[in-house]
């Protein structure tokens, strides 16, 4: 059986049937952050508590990565097999916009304002076969690509 580990602890709930991103909510002004942080970027309060963020939202903007990034990028691709990836901000209504990988790569299949849902997908495979998992967002109409 393949061992799967999250890219880091405390970024999303894992393992879970319905994974959620972990952020923080300010007890004083209600501002949400992603990831969780100890001070509020809006009012400066320290009353930040960890919360599970919404797993659905809309695509605020996006781009594609057309060249293999240098360090600190930790993907396992090489120049020869780099297929690119899409990145966007998904607006979780009333909470926060999160920067995320998108499961769709073709810009033609992405549309600003389209509904998106959280998924957890493999990011890279370690030499011992362990799969490192990351959060990503998929177009909400597409139900076939969850890990």
């Amino acid at each position: 059986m393949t061992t799967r580990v999250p890219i880091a602890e405390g970024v999303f709930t894992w393992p879970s049937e319905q994974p959620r991103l972990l952020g923080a909510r300010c007890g004083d002004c209600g501002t949400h952050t992603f990831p969780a942080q100890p001070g509020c970027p809006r009012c400066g309060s320290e009353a930040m508590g960890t919360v599970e963020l919404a797993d659905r939202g809309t695509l605020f903007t996006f781009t594609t990565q057309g060249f293999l990034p240098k360090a600190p990028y930790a993907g396992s691709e090489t120049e020869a097999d780099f297929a690119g990836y899409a990145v966007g901000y998904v607006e979780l209504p009333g909470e926060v916009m999160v920067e995320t990988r998108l499961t769709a790569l073709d810009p033609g299949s992405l549309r600003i304002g389209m509904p998106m849902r959280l998924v957890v997908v493999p990011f890279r495979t370690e030499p011992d076969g362990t799969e490192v998992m990351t959060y990503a967002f998929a177009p909400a109409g597409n139900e076939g690509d969850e890990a």
Partner: protein
Amino acid sequence: MNVAIVGVGIHPFGRFEGVTGLDLGAYAARRALQDAGIEWRDVQFAFGGSLAGLLPGSDESVQADQLVNLLGLTGIPFTNVHNGCATAGSMLAMGAALIESGQYELGVCVGFDRHARGHFNVRPEQTGLPHWYGDLGFMVTTQFFAMKINRYMHDFGITNSTLAKVAAKNYRNGAANPNAWRRKPLTEEEILRSPMLNYPLTQYMFCSPDEGAAAVVLCRGDTAHRYTDRPVYLRAVSVRTREFGSFEVFAPGLAVERSHSPSVDAAAACFEHAGVTPDDVDVAQLQDSESGAEIMHMSETGLCADGEQEAMIRAGETEIGGRLPINTDGGLIANGEPVGASGMRQVHEIVLQLRGDVGERQVPGAPRVGFTQVYGAPGVSCCTLLTT
């Protein structure tokens, strides 16, 4: 503000072998001193800005004040400035404040840098971000520019063709600038067909890190005629940082509540302080890290309303000879971005344009009011307003 620029100097921008950033800085500083007709020993204070030494894998000096070893150990106060893309503007702001305070009358600001290809790849921990953010491939500044312009194009009807027109203009202007790095004009078609680096931006729409230096000599305004018969006056300089809700680079999360860019605040403060309006501007230098940035900065600085860029650029209004010439020296797209020097290059070009002796790329009609704007990581902007 009672401050004049009486000397400017530049080292060409590009890639150079067998020199250090300090060499480039010293070259630009000497040119500026020569232009003002003064010697280094006349200078009462100096600011120096260079960021390369702070970036991973660099062997450049981390201290601009090592320049005094090359220019002369005269004992003056020399302050190192590291303020991201606003480094040059921050030097001007502090230099102007020292003169305004009455403490000094004559000073030099010099910015320089030498960046290798891909030099802006910083580690997440250096900007207070978690390690996984870098792992996943988000620490790529070009993604930020692409996502900002993609949304802007959606909201305000800017087309890909207009993105290409901006880059083509800047390469064309660069071809007429002997100090520029990219001096080969490129057609809109060549720009659109170059590899898609980050949708919707292609390779030739981006500027690249490179090397260069620029310097200015500042003096108290009422003494300017001692040094030159064509002083240019620094009427205002303003630096602003991001507010909550601004769309910024290297942000795993952004506020749902949207706010404007720091360039909006910096430009508004600059115009207000100078007592002029954006309509008065005859020539402008805007941060064009890529073509989309120039388009968005036109409206963020108040030079036009959101969405007007499409028609303005199609009509050639931002060309030399147009109603509002922008980036007449080729901007960052043709000059590259040695961060510490970049904002000073903008000021250098405006001074030459207002003096009226910039040759082939001279804006016609004796421009009297010039404006500069930089924007960059980590969400900082600086604007200057210059007049004859």
